């Protein structure tokens, strides 16, 4: 692991918070302590030993969605404050100090391999040898929207793609954000080993946090995946371009508004693929949020906020919904966004579900 960059963190701590207008946490909480530079200041004082760790400070510097909204306006191009804060609270805090709200979910993760508790029975998976695709099911949609995973498998079958479903554990990201690095590494090692055994050509994921964990964190944790990781928007767009999937017109849904998940838009820089995929559906009108694309704003679901800061998470979702244009359905491509925006009201579809409606008629 690269480790905390204390100089960049200090640059941020001295800055007058030039990015705060793009921080959803800052806006929702209205607390100076959880403004971007406010968190950097506390982290600096903790790291330099001017303060002793306690629950109050841990909660403050944990109040980060990891959305990288701050990066849009940051005067320090090399700084990723979300990452520095994550490192500060995983590397530097005393062992065993856990955000109280995270305790039950962390216990679930240790016991069941999912923060949501006992995992449902694995989806039926063909026993393909050396399949084209290894599908990684994320815990959040598994717990809340199991139908969306089934649709993904049906789309794969419709396109004639050979696949297997990985009998997996959580990717490990929740363990990391809640400070249990040992557990995060264990989960990563287990998933990586199982993925290698599959003989698949690529790993398919519909969760940006899982994608980010696989691509950026697994190599740092010594569990680099032996196969490339591809998001569902890019993968299904390829199948549409190849003519292996043929979307038809949607009945009731004539207009959709798309919410760009932060990690897809700002970290993976996947903004064009979901749009092109939606525009491949005949007659469907795509309406843009304000702001959209790379400048999207978090739905409040980043960093498992629904679980640890539920009230504020819902408030952030409500604000984001105010930025969406009127449309028959709101579409997104992240299980956290889908869950959080849906809780805020309105019809929300995962991108694969929308495609499923257009293809699996």
């Amino acid at each position: 692991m690269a480790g905390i960059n204390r100089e960049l963190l200090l640059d941020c701590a001295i800055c007058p918070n030039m990015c705060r207008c793009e921080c959803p946490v800052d806006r929702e909480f209205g607390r100076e302590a959880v403004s971007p530079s406010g968190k950097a200041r506390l982290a600096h004082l903790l790291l330099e030993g001017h303060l002793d760790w306690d629950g109050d400070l841990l909660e403050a510097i944990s109040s980060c969605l990891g959305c990288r909204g701050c990066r849009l306006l940051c005067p320090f191009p090399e700084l990723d404050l979300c990452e520095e804060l994550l490192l500060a609270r995983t590397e530097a805090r005393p062992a065993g100090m856990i955000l109280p709200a995270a305790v039950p979910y962390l216990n679930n993760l240790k016991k069941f391999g999912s923060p949501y508790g006992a995992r449902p029975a694995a989806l039926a998976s063909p026993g393909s040898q050396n399949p084209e695709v290894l599908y990684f099911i994320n815990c959040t949609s598994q717990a809340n929207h199991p139908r969306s995973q089934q649709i993904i498998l049906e789309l794969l079958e419709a396109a004639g793609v050979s696949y297997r479903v990985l009998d997996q554990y959580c990717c490990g990201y929740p363990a990391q954000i809640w400070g249990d690095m040992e557990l995060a590494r264990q989960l990563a090692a287990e998933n990586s080993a199982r993925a290698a055994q599959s003989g698949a050509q690529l790993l398919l994921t519909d969760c940006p946090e899982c994608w980010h964990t696989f691509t950026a964190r697994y190599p740092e944790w010594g569990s680099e995946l032996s196969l490339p990781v591809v998001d569902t928007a890019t993968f299904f767009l390829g199948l549409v371009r190849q003519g292996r999937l043929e979307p038809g017109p949607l009945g009731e849904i004539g207009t959709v508004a798309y919410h760009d998940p932060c990690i897809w838009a700002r970290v993976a820089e996947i903004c064009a693929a979901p749009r092109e995929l939606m525009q491949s559906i005949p007659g469907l009108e795509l309406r843009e949020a304000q702001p959209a694309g790379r400048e999207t704003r978090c739905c409040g679901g980043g960093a498992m906020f629904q679980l640890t800061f539920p009230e504020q998470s819902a408030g952030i979702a409500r604000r984001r919904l105010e930025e969406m244009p009127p449309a028959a359905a709101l579409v997104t491509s992240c299980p956290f966004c889908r869950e959080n925006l849906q809780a805020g009201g309105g019809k929300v579809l995962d991108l694969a579900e929308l495609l499923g409606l257009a293809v699996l008629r």
Partner: protein
Amino acid sequence: MLEHLGRTIQEERLPAPDYGALAEKFRSIVGSEGVSAGGADRLATCRDYWPMGTLWFLEGKAPALPDLVVWPRSSSEVAAVLKLAAENNIPVTPYGEGSGALGGAVPLQGGIALDMKRMNRVLKLDRDNLMVTVEPGLNGSRYEEYLNRHGYTGGHFPQSLRCSTVGGWVACRAAGTFSTRYGKIEDMVVSLEAVLPDGKVIRGRKLPRTSTGPRVDHLFIGSEGTLGVITAITLRIWPYPEKRIYCSYTFETIERALEAIRRLVQAGARPAVVRLYDPAETAHHFPDCEAAAGRVILVLLFEGDAGIIAAEEQLAAKLAREEGGLAAGPEPVEHWLETRFNVGLASKLFRQGAVVDTIEVSTNWTNAAPLYHAMQKAILAVEGTALASGHYSHVYPEGAALYLTLVGFPAGDKREYYRRLWGAAMESCLSLGGAISHHHGVGLHRGLWMAQEHGKALEALRMIKEALDPQGIMNPGKLGLGEVKKWPE
């Protein structure tokens, strides 16, 4: 947790109140989520962007801490909080987004940091009368974004736009970079709602002008939290500009460039942006502009009705030519627009041991160039100073604002160096008849020179303060209105 970081300066208000018991009473007003005695919140509201506060932070010190942080959500909650504070003789320091540069938000005697950020709603957009009413805790960038979405602009773009609140702009009598066209905050404010220290709520009328005695609500513009708490603001707004024109000119000397600007603005032109950089800042900010090499650059941005701004641009070109100016094209303006919010260098310099600050003053045209030369000379004479560069912005028919950027690498005590630096700058400014601040306000630090600035008028201001706030609970020690018996160290 905080004991070894610092302490609250309570000596002036002994005996210290029982904040534990008081917290419960405040919770009964603003709810349990509206009060914090937690270390994270108290530390976060113990300072603003005053460089002295940055030096404390770098030393791991917090010499003035609030005892409680309170978040009201309405003017009635503010009124109840102030009433309770007055009953218990507790100081109250309003807090916005902490971008103030003079220590105005430092809770000098502890007490309550009244964080206004949860009062952040747009209350009414009045399209017919081109006004908007907002709560004070609304972030500046979000304010402008809201107006743009509805086809308007607020015309107020301070460098702190993204990290300051509308209430903060009013409280410190701010100015934005587009001010030559749109005016300063006092030109934009139509009316205010404010809560007095005894809990009374006053509301100005939302009318273009009145001739019914002094506007009491306007007294709160520039009051920096010393008279009460601003709880709603009605501002003028403008239709989003139809067109923009960018142009720039380089000149051999500051004097010739200032003459071109003076003639332009006195002829009635109102460019939104007027910025004239001295040689050091021209070289620093526009290194790729060949036409500016060895010269000074003037950046102009016109916006509004296409016909009007075309005429203004023509006049600017003519006057610039007559003063020896050479056209340098739109690129320097585009560059300025792209980089205007970048304050990253200050952090880097502080981290490397420098002391960095900015000082903005105002002067009449007759003294515009001499004041720059005199203040630069005085500041550079302070041992340890490495840079004193400047630019003019915010121009008027009567004069202009001068904005100096200072960087020092003092060998000894940085805080002592900082005091000497400011002493030299302020004395120099006053000796040439300049105003000691154009738009950053007074806060804690500039209070030292307020008597010289105002003369007997400061006594009148103190009498007003004492009449409204007889216990002196509102932001004590600020604006030069009260003696600071003990400076935070």
